C-alpha cells in the first residue's frame, strides 16, 4: 500500500522555538527520512515554504481566479509530506509515530494513496 504522511506544523509553537531547537528538529527529521529510505519505504518527500508564500487557484462563479494566500488562517498548516510504501496501515502508523517533529507540536495525517 502507498500512504502519504501529511505533516502539519503548529506555527505558533514552531515560532517560539529557538533556532538551535529548530535545527535539531529538522536534522532529526532528515535522519527519520533516511531511516525510511533504508527500510525501503520512502518514495518521495517534500518540505514546503510557509503558507504566506502560497497562491490559491480556484473556480469562482465559472471564472478561474488566482488569489493570494491560504484558504483560512489556522495554527496548523501543511508543512510537507512523506510518501511511503508499506504493508498496511499499522506499518504506516508505526513510521508516523516516530516522526521527530511530533515532539515540537507537529501532527501527522496518514492518508492512503489512490493507486
Amino acid at each position, binding site marked *: *500500500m502507498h*500512504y502519504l504522511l501529511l505533516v502539519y506544523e503548529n506555527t505558533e509553537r514552531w515560532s517560539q522555538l529557538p533556532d538551535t531547537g529548530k535545527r535539531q528538529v529538522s536534522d532529526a527529521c532528515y535522519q527519520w527520512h533516511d531511516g525510511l529510505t533504508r527500510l525501503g519505504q520512502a518514495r518521495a518527500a517534500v518540505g514546503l515554504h510557509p503558507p504566506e508564500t502560497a497562491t490559491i487557484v480556484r473556480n469562482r462563479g465559472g471564472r478561474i481566479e488566482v488569489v493570494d494566500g491560504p484558504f483560512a488562517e489556522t495554527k496548523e498548516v501543511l508543512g510537507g509530506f512523506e510518501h511511503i510504501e508499506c*504493508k*498496511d*496501515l*499499522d506499518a*504506516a*502508523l508505526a513510521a508516523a509515530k516516530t516522526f521527530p517533529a511530533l515532539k515540537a507540536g507537529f501532527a501527522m495525517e*496518514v492518508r*492512503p494513496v489512490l493507486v
Partner: protein
Amino acid sequence: MPLDELYRREYGRILASLIRRLRDITLAEDALQEAFAAAVRLWPEQGPPENPVAWLMVTARHKAIDQLRRRTLAENKHEEMITLATPEENAPVPQDTLRLIFTCCHPSLAREAQVALTLRTVCGLSTEEIARAFLVPVPTLAQRLVRAKTKIRLAGIPYEVPDDDELPERLEPVLATLYLVFNEGYSASFGPELVRGNLCAEAIRLGRQLVELLPEAREPRGLLALMLLNDSRRATRTDATGAIVLLEDQDRSRWDRERIAEGAALVESALRGGPPGLYAVQAAIAALHAQAPTWSETDWPQIVQLYGILLRLHPSPVVALNRAAAVAMAEGCERGLALMAGIDLPGYHLLPAARADLLRRLGRRPEAAAAYREALALVNNDAERRYLEGRLREVEAGKP
C-alpha cells in the same frame, strides 16, 4: 441445535474465518448470509447436515466463489480465486475471531464505528437490532457500517492480532468498546429491557472469548470480572415500575451468586502478577459490594483505598466523587461533604445528587433540598429524574 441458535453462536466465528480468506468483509458477509438462507431452505427438507458449521463454511465459500466469478468477468481477481481454491480446514479458527475484533476496534476508526462494527460482525447482531439498541435511525447505522468497512479496505487496516509490544495499547480500544456495549445495555434508561439485556450478554460473551484467546493479558480478565459483577445485580436495579433502586436498598438475596463467584475469582487473578489495571481495580470495588452481606457491613475502608488507587491510575473528578462517597460511608458524611466541596464537575448531576444524599443523611434538609433541585436541573435520564424528585419531596415533607 435450532438454526437461529446456531446463527447466534457461530455467525461471528464463521465470518471471521471467511474474512481472513477473502480479505473483504462485505463479500464474506454476503456469502455467509446466503449460506444461512440456503440452510433455512434446505435443512428442513434434507435434514440438518452432520456438521452444520462445516456445511455453512463450505457453502459460504462456494457462494463467495460464485460472486467472485461474476466479478472477474469485469475485473481481475485471480489472487482471491486462488486463495479460495486451496482446500482448507472447515472449522472456524479462534485466532480469526481475535483478528476480527482487533480490526473492528482499530484506533483509526471512530468509537461509534468500532461499536457498530463489532456488534454487527463479531456478534452477528442485525443492523436493525444495533440501531434500536443505540436509538439511531437504521439508515444512519447502515451508513456508519458501510463507511467503516470502506475505511478498513481503502486505508489498509490490517486483519491481524497486534504484536506483543503493541498489544497493551491496542487492547485499550477493544476493552473500551466492550465496556461501552455492556454499559449501554446496563444503564441506558431507554429501549425495551430485552434489547438491553442482549447487549450485556453479548459484551460478556465477547469478554469471555477475549479472556480465552489472550490468557496472558490481565486487563481482559479485569473487564470480564467487572461486567459479571455488575450484571449480577441487574435484576434488582429497578423495581416493577421501572424506578431506580439504589445499591443500598437492593434485595441482595436476588443477586446472581454464580456470576459473583465467577467475577470474584477473576478479580483475584486479574490483580495478581503486576501493577493493577483500571478494570481490575474497578472490578475489585464491585466485588466488595457484591460480597457484602448488607450495605452497612460493606468493607468501606477497603473501597476507599481502591478508589485511591484508581484515582492515581486515572485522575478524574468522577473517580474523586466516587471516592468521596465511599469516604462518607467509612469516616462520616461530613468528611465526604468536605471532599466533595473540592471537586469541580460543572454540569454533572451526580455531584449535587451525591451532596444532597449526604446532607439528607445529616438531617440538613433545606440544604439537601437545594442540592436535589440543583441535580434535577442537570439530569437527563427519566428514571433518575423520578428518583431525585421523590427524594426532594421527602426532604421537603420533613421525612428523615
